[in-house]
């Protein structure tokens, strides 16, 4: 059974089904969407029994000719990295769809776009052909543009256009990079096959051209991550996006950038990456500290969480830069693999934790108070004990409390990167204190202290909200206490990459 193709196109099939449902029947539309997203999640879980846990290389490859004249094919496959990110995607989509049952505005289009978005995201993680990859990469852009632009907040148009244009600029730069690679293959053997191009590294030793292609990819991925100073689209997009849109944006779309760095930039341009690794590490460290400090100064909860993403994605990039810097030094292989494991773990942890944080903000904002001002609350824990417990757990997970998932990621990133770039890593560790400071301050202002009488009678989490948050909290704790099962999968790819980079 072509399980990857099935997983990939199930959401698209769902979107097609939605087309034929009457728009008045909002309830059925919601249930059908939930059904398809659940089916996709189930399908993605079915990849696991077929996955060979002893194999580091990309496996379960499914391919078909598409445009043979220019060497374009349909080719998908998974390895440890893309597998865990695909699972993250399908899970978060289910939860976002479930959370969005409360949406009443143009339900049909809303759900349709979500399913379309899911196919786009999964395609990015599965694609093994640059042309296919690019198609999916761009496909993620369009639904999110509409989700922000139609269902967003007051400044939705500004935010949507900013998001679209900013990322599009990056995409074009990447396209040029891809074409550079393509045209440097010997004529007659030209292909967009990712594995083949990585094997041949057509731009190795070309100097300027390799530099250009590297920076082309860099711009695209760095904007997506987002790395400092390309991050300012993020707070606007998050603030204006509907809750579920923010969840997907933070949990999955940002990971496309870091995924790109690990999947393409590292193996395609190891020399060039190593050459610029310290510069990129510098940007990452700035992102860590700057993101945390700017988050501290925010009064809008969504902006606060958005800047905390800048901070956390900085850790991921620190580890990636460290791994790149270890290129050509076999004695650092294990350290680099540890750092890459940490980076991937942080992608997952950030997806789960920040996804939960945006849901937490949505719960309080969408249905209950219609305000996100950190200072508009106070003493909520007394009124909303369950909600308080979930939120506080998520915030502590985000600030890297041991026993929760974020810590595992940070610990591996730190110990791995320190062996390669100690000074940068030690500086980044400062971010840990600042992150703690702004989350504790936030907890204090929202949940502790005297209760704001305006909110004395708010209802606690209802069943549906509990079901969207509960799985995330469980995952944070389970993989925080015992991360090995996840790391065993991730380590396959990291070891493979490190072996390639020796």
């Amino acid at each position, binding site marked *: 059974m072509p399980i990857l193709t099935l997983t990939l196109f199930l959401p698209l099939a769902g979107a097609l089904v939605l087309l034929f449902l009457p728009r008045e029947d909002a309830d059925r539309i919601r249930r059908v969407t939930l059904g398809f997203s659940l089916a996709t999640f189930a399908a993605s879980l079915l990849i696991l029994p077929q996955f060979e846990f002893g194999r580091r290389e990309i496996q379960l490859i499914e391919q078909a000719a598409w445009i043979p004249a220019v060497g374009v094919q349909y080719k998908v496959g998974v390895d440890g990295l893309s597998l865990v990110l695909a699972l993250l995607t399908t899970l978060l989509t289910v939860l976002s769809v479930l959370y969005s049952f409360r949406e009443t505005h143009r339900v049909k289009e809303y759900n349709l776009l979500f399913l379309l978005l899911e196919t786009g995201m999964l395609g990015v993680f599965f694609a093994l052909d640059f042309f296919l990859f690019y198609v999916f990469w761009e496909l993620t852009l369009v639904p999110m543009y509409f989700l922000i632009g139609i269902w967003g907040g007051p400044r939705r148009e500004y935010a949507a256009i*900013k998001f679209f*244009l*900013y990322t599009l600029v990056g995409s074009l730069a990447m396209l040029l990079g891809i074409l550079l690679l393509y045209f440097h293959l010997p004529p007659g053997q030209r292909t967009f096959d990712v594995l083949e191009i990585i094997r041949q590294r057509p731009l190795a030793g070309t100097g300027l051209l390799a530099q250009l292609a590297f920076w082309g990819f860099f711009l695209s991925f760095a904007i997506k991550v987002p790395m400092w*100073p390309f*991050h*300012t*689209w993020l707070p606007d997009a998050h603030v204006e996006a509907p809750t579920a849109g923010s969840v997907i944006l933070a949990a999955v779309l940002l990971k496309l950038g870091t995924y790109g760095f690990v999947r393409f930039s590292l193996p395609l341009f190891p020399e060039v990456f190593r050459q610029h690794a310290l510069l990129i590490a510098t940007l990452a460290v700035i992102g860590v500290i*700057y993101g945390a*400090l*700017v988050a*501290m*100064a*925010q009064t809008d909860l969504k902006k606060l969480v958005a800047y905390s993403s800048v901070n956390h994605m900085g850790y991921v990039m620190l580890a990636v830069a460290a791994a790149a810097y270890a290129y050509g030094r076999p004695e650092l*292989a*294990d*350290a680099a*693999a*540890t*750092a890459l*494991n940490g980076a991937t773990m942080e992608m997952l942890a950030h997806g789960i934790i920040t996804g939960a944080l945006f849901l937490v903000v949505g719960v309080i904002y969408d249905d209950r108070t219609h305000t996100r001002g950190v200072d508009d609350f106070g*003493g909520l*824990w*007394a009124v909303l004990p369950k909600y308080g*417990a979930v939120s506080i757990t998520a915030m*502590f997970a985000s600030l890297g*409390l*041991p*026993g929760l998932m974020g*810590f*595992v990621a940070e*610990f*591996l990133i*730190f*110990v791995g990167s*320190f*062996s390669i770039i*100690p000074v940068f890593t*030690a500086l980044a*560790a*400062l971010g*840990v*204190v*600042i992150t*703690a*400071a702004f989350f*504790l*301050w936030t907890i*204090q202002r929202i*949940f*502790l*202290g*005297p209760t704001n009488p305006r909110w*004395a009678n708010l209802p606690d989490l209802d069943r549906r909200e509990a079901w969207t948050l509960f799985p995330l909290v469980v995952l944070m704790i389970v993989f925080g206490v015992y*991360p*090995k099962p996840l*790391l*065993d999968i991730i*380590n396959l790819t*990291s*070891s493979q990459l490190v072996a390639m980079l020796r």
Partner: protein
Amino acid sequence: MARLAWLIPLFPLASYGILAFRGRVLGERAPYVAIAAMAVSAVLAWGTFLEQVLGAPPFVWRAAWAVGGERVITVGYTVDSLSSITVAMITLVGGLIFVYSVGYMHGDPYYARFFAFLSLFCAGMLTMVLANSFLLMLIGWEVIGLCSYLLIGFYFRRRSANLAQMKAFLTTRVGDTLMLVGIMALFWQFGTVDYQTVFEAVHKGAEKASAAVRLGPWEIPVVTLTALLIFGGPIGKSGQFPLHVWLPDAMEGPTPVSALIHAATMVAAGVYLVGRAYPLFFFTPHHEALTWVAWVGTVTALMAGLIALAQDDIKRVLAYSTISQLGFMMAGLGVLGYTAGLFHLLTHAFFKALLFLAAGSVIHAVRTNNIKEMGGLWRSMPVTFWTFLAGFLALAGVFPFAGFWSKDEILLEAYHHDPAIYTLLTAAAFLTALYMSRLVAYAFFGRYRGPEHPEPDPWLPEDYARAGVHGPHHGHEAHRGPHESPPVMTVPLMVLAFFALVAGFVGIPGTGPEGGSWIHHFLKFEGFEEAGIHAPSFSWPLALRSLAVALAGIGVAWVVYGVRWVRSDQVRAWVGPLYPFLRNRMYIDTVYAWVFVRGGLALAAGLRWFDVHGVDGLVNLVGGVTVLVSRLHRLFDTYVVDGLVNLIGWLTRGLGMLLRPLQTGRAYHYILVAAAGLVIIVVVSLWRL
């Protein structure tokens, strides 16, 4: 038994799980779950401890937890004399404090939550102690930090409690971050963070470890730098100068919390860690890391003792006393008194927990923390008084109470290894006796002065209503002067008082083999023997000297606060600005508030401005310029490109207009024109011929 030791932290953890999800249902019965779990853990812990006493070999168990390339990071636990005696102490003191809390916290609207957090704390603390690697230690370490945070702010409606809990978590996190960097450095040097592997490698002297790092003008060996970074954690957790500022504020938490977490166990975690990682500190060149530990401890002991003299809040005095005693322990470890420092950790846990619980009993009765509003309580609260007295004598170091033996050990080691530290520690011991006697005199003697401002209830009527319990707002009972606490609170006091008396007896010379003390035999550091360092043997002259110092402190206090031959305001006048200096905690907190809190917030606000106007300004500028350029394009488009098109159109049209009169629609006009044309053609043709 050692093979079951992993269960010791799991019972409190399970209790936390039950109370977190079913606490509301359990209500009044919540404490029984917590106490039962602690009881089981205590049995296991004491079994493990006794097994070690009887000479069982150390036991280590590991399991893979994470991977990085070929490398495996393990977690596990280790049972040896140090960890077993510490878990035995924690489960005993913890269990007693749980029982005491049943009475102290009764009627609180968040009764179950309190026991849930206490259980989680014990789980974290026991994990931290039993851990076999820096990784699992760090996990337990941060969990207890979290519980400390949650419990300091237990009365979460109080602003002061909110601020105190943040201060505690953040201040300790500064230290923790340094420790984290230290752990990274260990991983870099040895590729592992497992205690055993790291310590063996340090002992052998690994290549990377002996390299030197240049820090400005200093060159410092990597291993020393690593040890000092690791020491950052203990500085934060154990309230050592300069990160001690959070501990006095932590007294905002309920008193059993102060007793368990901020006196007996968590704050001692730092001392425990230095003991655990002793090889790392010891095997630095010239033991230089230990010299740092000794001096940090000594400065802390002295500073906190001085500040304690000028505090009026009973719990704050005890908090500064805790800081000071933790300083003693660190100093003891630092001057090569491995056993001495850890021995003091164990005895201190008993008598300081006792002092806090007794203070809680007092506060429960008089509803104030201010010792100047107490007085004469020895008559109305006899059990509390006598037990407090036992704790006081132990802390002051009076023969034969526990503190006498352990503090004497520290002074003995200091005398032999570093006379300067000995002198300073002796002065700190004098201060200890002095401020504690002041406290006892104010609280228990003289006449009852009654609180002017009784402590306000931390909860609101709606909190009680929501929890369905009767708070003091309902069925208000007339306050009839202070009276003794119920047995559920006084019995734990008596048990602890017993230990405050006898816990030191294991340090009496002759209780162990070869005329030494049992504790020296049980808790010893293997590295000393190899290095030819022998623990100095007990000496009566020194012991009498430290006893005399303690009695002198008590005597001076008696002169000023007891019989009042010299009045305290006279003393205050003599010392001049010293009093406000000490009363305001040497202004350390004030400086931190300005530099770090306000400075940090100002920096954050500045960066936010920069982000909006600088970085995003640039983005918007690019966007704006693009729009402007496109407008120009539009103008060009409208007036040039489109203008050209329009021009052509206009020309065509103009031409058409010009030709339009010709189109008359009348046949004879056309025939006329056609004929004229024909004529012209004919004429032209003829012309060319």
